[in-house]
C-alpha cells in the first residue's frame, strides 16, 4: 500500500479523533496512541484502560481522553507523533517497530513527551538503544526467555535443542534464549536453522521430524516469531519431547485463559468492550494507560510532569492481575511484572519461579538487571 499523502493522513487522523474522543472537559488527561498498520489489537487495550481510568477518575474530577493516530504501513512515525504533540498530548502509547520508536523518541526528546512502548519486545530498546523518554509495558524478549527458562530449569528440563527461523526477529528471540540458558544453567546441546525451500517434496510436518533427530535433549526450543513452523513441531518431534519457545509452551505478558488474581474481571471487561479475547499486546497497552491513570490519581494531578515523575517514582505500583505489583525499572524504563508460562488452553506456571533469588526483588531475575548497566542513557 502506498504511503498516504499528508492531507489524507491528517483526514484519517481527524476521523479517528472524532470517532474516539468525547468532548474534553477542562482538567483532562490526554493519552495518545501511535501505531502502524490496521487492526484494533493494542488499541482496544488502551481504550479499556481509558474507560477504567474514567470510571475511577470521575470520583476525583479527572477525565481521560484518547487520541489515536494510526499510520499506514511504512508511515512516518515522527510525523504521527507530531500530530499528537501538537494537541499538547504528553503521554503516547506506541506499537511501533523498534527503529521507528527510536526515531520518534529522539524527535520528542526535548518536548517532555513520554512514549510508552506497548509493542516492541526488542532488548536493544532496553539496552544499547535505550532512550530516557521511553517506557516499556510489553516485556522484553529477555524477560520472556528468562521466564520460560526458569520454568524449564525448575523442572530439570535443562538440555535444549534450539531451532531458529530465518527472520531477524527469530534471531533476536534465539539470542534471548541463549542468554537465558547461560543465566539459569540450561544447556543448548544443538542449534539448527529452519530453512524453507520451495522443494515440493518437503513439508513443515516432515521437516520437524528430520530436524529433531540425531541428538539427545529434554526440550525443543523454537524461535519462530512469525509462526512459520513452530506449531507443526508440537507433537511432531523424532523423540517424544515437549516443544517450548515461541510455540508450544510459551512465555507471555498475558493470556486469554489467565484467570488468577482477579484477572477474570479484566478479561470480562475487555471481552464486553472489544468482543474478543485480550491478547498480550492489548494487555501491554492497557497497562500503559492504567499506569498514567494510576499515577495521576495517586498524585491527584493532571500536570503531565508530575504524572511522569509519579510513574517513574520508586514507590509507584500498578495492579496488573498477576499476583505481584508491577512498577517501572529506573535503569531501563521496563515495567517489571510476572511472566505467564503456558499454552493456548492453560497457564501452567508463573515466573519468577520459587528459588530464583535476587537481592532486591525476584521480579528482577527476569530481563536485564540494574547491575548489567546496559542502558547508557540512564547511567
Amino acid at each position: 500500500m502506498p504511503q498516504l499523502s499528508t492531507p489524507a493522513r491528517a483526514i484519517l487522523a481527524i476521523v479517528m479523533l472524532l470517532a474516539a474522543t468525547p468532548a474534553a472537559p477542562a482538567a483532562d488527561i490526554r493519552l495518545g496512541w501511535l501505531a502502524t498498520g490496521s487492526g484494533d489489537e493494542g488499541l482496544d487495550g488502551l481504550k479499556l484502560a481509558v474507560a477504567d481510568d474514567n470510571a475511577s477518575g470521575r470520583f476525583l474530577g479527572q477525565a481521560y481522553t484518547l487520541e489515536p493516530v494510526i499510520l499506514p504501513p511504512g508511515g512516518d512515525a515522527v510525523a504521527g507523533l507530531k500530530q499528537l504533540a501538537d494537541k499538547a498530548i504528553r503521554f503516547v502509547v506506541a506499537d511501533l517497530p523498534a527503529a521507528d520508536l527510536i526515531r520518534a523518541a529522539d524527535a520528542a526528546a526535548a518536548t517532555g513527551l513520554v512514549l510508552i512502548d506497548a509493542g516492541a519486545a526488542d532488548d536493544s530498546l532496553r539496552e544499547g538503544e535505550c532512550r530516557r523518554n521511553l517506557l516499556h509495558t510489553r516485556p522484553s524478549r529477555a524477560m520472556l526467555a528468562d521466564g520460560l527458562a526458569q520454568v524449564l530449569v525448575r523442572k530439570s528440563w535443562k538440555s535444549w535443542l534450539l531451532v531458529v527461523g530465518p527472520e531477524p526477529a527469530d534471531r533476536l528471540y534465539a539470542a534471548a534464549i541463549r542468554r537465558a540458558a547461560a543465566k539459569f544453567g540450561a544447556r543448548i546441546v544443538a542449534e539448527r536453522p529452519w530453512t524453507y525451500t520451495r522443494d515440493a517434496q518437503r513439508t513443515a510436518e516432515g521437516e520437524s521430524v528430520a530436524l529433531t533427530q540425531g541428538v539427545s535433549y529434554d526440550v525443543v526450543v523454537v524461535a519462530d516469531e512469525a509462526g512459520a513452523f513452530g506449531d507443526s513441531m508440537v507433537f511432531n518431534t523424532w523423540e517424544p519431547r515437549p516443544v517450548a519457545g515461541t510455540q508450544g509452551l510459551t512465555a507471555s505478558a498475558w493470556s486469554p485463559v489467565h484467570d488468577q488474581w482477579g484477572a477474570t474481571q479484566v478479561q470480562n471487561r475487555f471481552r464486553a468492550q472489544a468482543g474478543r479475547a485480550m491478547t498480550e499486546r492489548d494487555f501491554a497497552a492497557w497497562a500503559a494507560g492504567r499506569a498514567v491513570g494510576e499515577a495521576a490519581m495517586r498524585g491527584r494531578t493532571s500536570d503531565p510532569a508530575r504524572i511522569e515523575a509519579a510513574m517513574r517514582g520508586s514507590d509507584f505500583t500498578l495492579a496488573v492481575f498477576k499476583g505481584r505489583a508491577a512498577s517501572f525499572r529506573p535503569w531501563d524504563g521496563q515495567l517489571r511484572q510476572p511472566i505467564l508460562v503456558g499454552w493456548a488452553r492453560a497457564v501452567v506456571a508463573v515466573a519468577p519461579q520459587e528459588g530464583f533469588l535476587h537481592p532486591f526483588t525476584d521480579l528482577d531475575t527476569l530481563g536485564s538487571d540494574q547491575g548489567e548497566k546496559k542502558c547508557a542513557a540512564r547511567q
Partner: protein
Amino acid sequence: MRRAAVMMVAMLAAGGVRAQTAYVSNEKDDTISVIDVKSMTVTQTVKVGRRPRGITLTPDFKQLYICASDSDTIQVMDLATLKIVHDLPSGEDPEQFTLHPDGRRLYVANENNNVVTVIDTQTRRVIGQVDVGIEPEGMAVSPDGKVAVNTSETTNMVHWFDADKLTLLDNTLVGSRPRFALFDKEGRTLWVTAEVGGTVHVIDAATHKERQTISFAIPGIPKDKIQPVGLRLSNDGKLAFVALGPANHVAVIDTASLKVVKYLLVGRRVWHLALTPDGSRLLATNGVSGDVSVIDTERMEVLKSIPVGRYPWGVAIRP
C-alpha cells in the same frame, strides 16, 4: 514424649473453648465445610452453588448467606438442616456482602458490573443499587446503620454512601486493590486492607480522612508478596488481625499504637479471618494449601491447621 506434651497443651487449650461451629466456603469445590471449633475437626461438607466466596451469618445464627459468585446468586442455608432453603437476588457476580445492623438489609458488592446491590432479605427484593468504582469488593455498614462503605479494587477507593438513601457521600483514595473494610465497634474508625499496595488504612469515620497507613515487613519475604486481605478486630477492640495473603502470615496489630506486634505463620495464601464469638480463637482460611489455621488469641499461637476443600475463601462462626 514431646508429642504427648503438645497434645496435652492442645487439649488444655481446647478445654477452654465452648462448642462453636465454623463454616468455610471452598471456592473451587463449591462446598461449605462445617468445623467443630472445640475438637478442631470438619464434621460435614455440604455442596452449594458455584464458586462460593463471601459468607455471613444472620444475627440469630439460624441461617448462613452464601455468595455463589458463578451462579450469580446468594444462597440462604438453614443451619439446622444444612439445606439451601432459598436464593436471594444478588445482581451479577456477588463476591462480598454485609448485613445491615437491622438484620434485614443486605449490601452486596457485584464485582463484574461496578455496582453495590441492596437486598431486602425478607421480601427477597432488590431495594436499590449504587454506582461505585471498578470491581467493587469490600463492604461494611457503620454500627449505627447510617453509612455504608464499599471498596473498589481497580479504582482503589473507599466509597461512602448513605445506607438509607443510597446516595454517594464521599470517596477516599487508599492503597492499590482494596479488598476488605471493617468498622470498629464504636463506628469511629474504618479499617481497610489494600492487597497490592501491601497496606492497611486506618480511616476516621467522621471525616473520611486517613489517620494512618500501616505497612508490614517480614524477614525473608519480598515486600510485594505481603498482600493484606482479611481483617478482624478483637472483641475488646485492642487488637487487629490481618491476613497477609501469599506472605503466609497473619499480622497482629496493637490498635492503640497502630504497630504490628506479631506475625503468625499460617498456611499458604491466607485469605479471610473470623473470630469465635467468645473471642478465644481466630480462624484463617488458607487458599492455596486448602486448610484453615486455628489461632489461640490469648497465647498468640497457631494450634492446628484443619484440611478443608480446595481454595477455602470465607469463614463465619456461630456459638
